[in-house]
């Protein structure tokens, strides 16, 4: 829909930088979620190398809840003004 707009080199750089920042943000979100849910759900005595059923269902719920918290805070930050 915006295909016939020809952005200047400056715009392109800005847009690319923006996309890169967002990618960084997503990777960080994934890393923090992974670390946090591991702390909350996985027994750190490591008696075996498999995740058991309890751990697996905890992880699924943890990801779901973490995602809800991300949305909730995003809404709080995003209402009217940019994040932060």
């Amino acid at each position: 829909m915006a295909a016939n707009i020809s952005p200047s080199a400056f715009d392109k750089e800005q847009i690319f930088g923006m996309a890169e920042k967002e990618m960084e943000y997503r990777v960080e979100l994934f890393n923090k979620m992974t670390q946090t849910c591991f702390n909350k759900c996985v027994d750190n005595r490591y008696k075996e190398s498999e995740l058991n059923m309890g751990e697996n269902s905890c992880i699924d719920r943890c990801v779901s809840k973490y995602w809800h918290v991300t949305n909730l805070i995003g809404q709080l930050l995003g209402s009217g003004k940019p994040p932060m």
Partner: protein
Amino acid sequence: DQLQIRDSLRMYNSLVERCFNDCVDTFKHKSLQKQEETCVRRCAEKFLKHSMRVGMRLRSLSWAEVTGIKIGQVRPSCVDIVEPAR
């Protein structure tokens, strides 16, 4: 400006991590419970207010003194050199 965006996003991620850690501890349900949601809202609001207060207090302290290490002494002359070139 882009640095600002990155730092906002980083702060956003830290805020989520903190409030999740402080407010969510049981995983019997897939969705956020009412009291968890209230806790997260308060946590985020409180942290943002706190963050603004820290920023305010920090600006009132002399930055020059904060960066009174060697690297800091490079900057003032940088400004002298770079500014007129624009």
